[in-house]
């Protein structure tokens, strides 16, 4: 593996404002208006993306010959309780060909419906029905399963822990908590000891 990727340039800690990394310029050219802001700090490049454009940005980053972010290393969420949007999805991408990291962040608004307990299904009483959302919206993000099958369990974990749903996810069920668990433990308004 060659470890001398030309882009993005190594971040500098000089007070002079560094030129925006190459990926930012290319993204602006390919998908104008999708980028909300970026931060190049401690050698880590983070891009905040407007949520309706998230899927197309990620597809561009995976498929563009200059980017080739083929490995979705991590996908998680952060509950910024009190902020709007409340949730933040965090994608850690890595290019195995170019040997560079990139972090993509995107907001998900809170939805009241998400807090409701799982709907009672017509099947066996203890089983909630698989959730099949088709359009992103409040509390619902776009699944990236079609880009990286690796997202399957990451998105299930986020659904389990934060209650964020993913449109077009093939099998969105809880993964770590029991199927009939109430609430989403990693939300900031969920008590550490659980509901008593």
């Amino acid at each position, binding site marked *: 593996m060659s470890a001398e990727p030309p882009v993005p340039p190594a971040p500098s800690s000089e007070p002079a404002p560094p030129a925006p990394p190459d990926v930012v310029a290319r993204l602006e050219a390919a998908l104008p208006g999708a980028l909300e802001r970026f931060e190049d700090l401690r050698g880590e490049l983070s891009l905040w993306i407007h949520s309706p454009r998230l899927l197309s940005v990620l597809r561009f980053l995976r498929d563009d010959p200059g980017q080739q972010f083929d490995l979705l290393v991590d996908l998680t969420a952060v509950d910024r309780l009190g902020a709007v949007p409340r949730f933040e999805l965090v994608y*850690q991408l*890595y290019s195995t060909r170019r040997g560079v990291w990139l972090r993509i962040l995107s907001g998900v608004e809170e939805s009241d419906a998400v807090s409701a307990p799982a709907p009672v299904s017509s099947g066996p009483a203890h089983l909630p029905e698989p959730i099949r959302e088709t359009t992103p919206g409040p509390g619902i993000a776009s699944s990236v399963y079609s880009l*990286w099958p690796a997202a399957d369990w990451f998105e299930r974990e986020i659904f389990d822990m934060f209650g964020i749903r993913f449109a077009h996810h093939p099998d969105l069920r809880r993964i770590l908590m029991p199927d009939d668990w109430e609430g989403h433990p990693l939300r900031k308004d969920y008590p550490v000891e659980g509901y008593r």
Partner: protein
Amino acid sequence: MSAFASGSVSGFDSLLEPGQAPRAGHLILNMGPQHPSTHGVLRLVLEIDGEVVVRVRPVIGYLHTGIEKSCESKLYQQVVTLTDRIDYLCPLTNNLCYVLTVEKLLGLEIPRKAQWVRVLLNELTRINSHLVWLGTHALDIGAMTMFLYTFREREEILKIFEMASGQRMMTSYFRIGGLALEPPLGLLERVRAFISGFSAKIDEYETLLTRNSIWMGRTRGVGVISAADAIAAGLTGPCLRAAGVPLDLRKTQPYSGYQEFDFSVPVRTESDVYARYLVRLAELRESVKIVTQAMAGLPEGPFKAQAPGIVLPDRDKMKSEMEALIYHFKIVTEGFRVPAGQAFQAVESPRGIMSYYIVSDGTSRPYRVHMRCPSYANLQSLARMVEGRLLADVVAVIGSLDIVLGETDR
């Protein structure tokens, strides 16, 4: 069979829709969570047609302990002890990944001696983890002798860990800013005694397995996944390197001083269970090289950073200097503040890419800690490796993935 036909059997939910029956002639088989070859509490729901696996669905979560949630209510330095408990085979790798992430947020410079000791112990951890993998993997496939030999060597590594940290498994030896204690006198002699004889032990393992016709028959051509599929599914570590992708973060994104060490990254292209075995055995030899270099060139100097207020002061200073006593009191009782922001650090654990993502809100407790555990991501590839293969191959493939369920469920 009537219960199967109605699709109402409790727990078979993950493979069948409510009310759906298995296809004619197919059987839904439950494997685990208490099954010796699932390395813990992994449960598999399999749809089989005779001996052939049609579909497999792993069910996890039996060991979920909410570590990520617990981290949010602990002080930064207290979280170190939680990271031990994620993976009982590589606590030091988890310690390292966590402290590196916090040190990134704090902007701490770590003395070279601490970095080298971290590398040394991390490579011993890799040997430890690979030894347990080798012993249990061979045991699953029926070569029981292997287990006795690998655990003999592992015991010596655990004694080394105990010597350094006071604990065999829950080490917590790496602290934010350096090490918990000065490496004890005699540690290097003990490591040297172990490592000098270890290459011969690897040869012994190879004599038992590498050209063993039963072993080859059970592992060659089994559990194949293409490199493209493996990357798309998030497979990393020795399994990805056995598929021909030379991705090793110690080389591509060196951390903790790995750029100063001379070692190579073993790669195979067959991408089967046998190739993963060969890659891991070659990694054992590379780890021996790194440990040897780390001992030979171990720098002199302090074992922790000069950062009063973050790193605990020396014991003798606490008895003679008032500031040291105050810092000690403050760190222990209220911790230290970490600048707001987020940081991400990935390391090459024995199982693949392990990464920590920490969000700080400027207080002394992390706002969010997320671990990306290689076992969790790697286990997703299981279905692609075993569907269409024989049921007996499932056991071989699980062994070759080298999963740790504590890490999967966190």
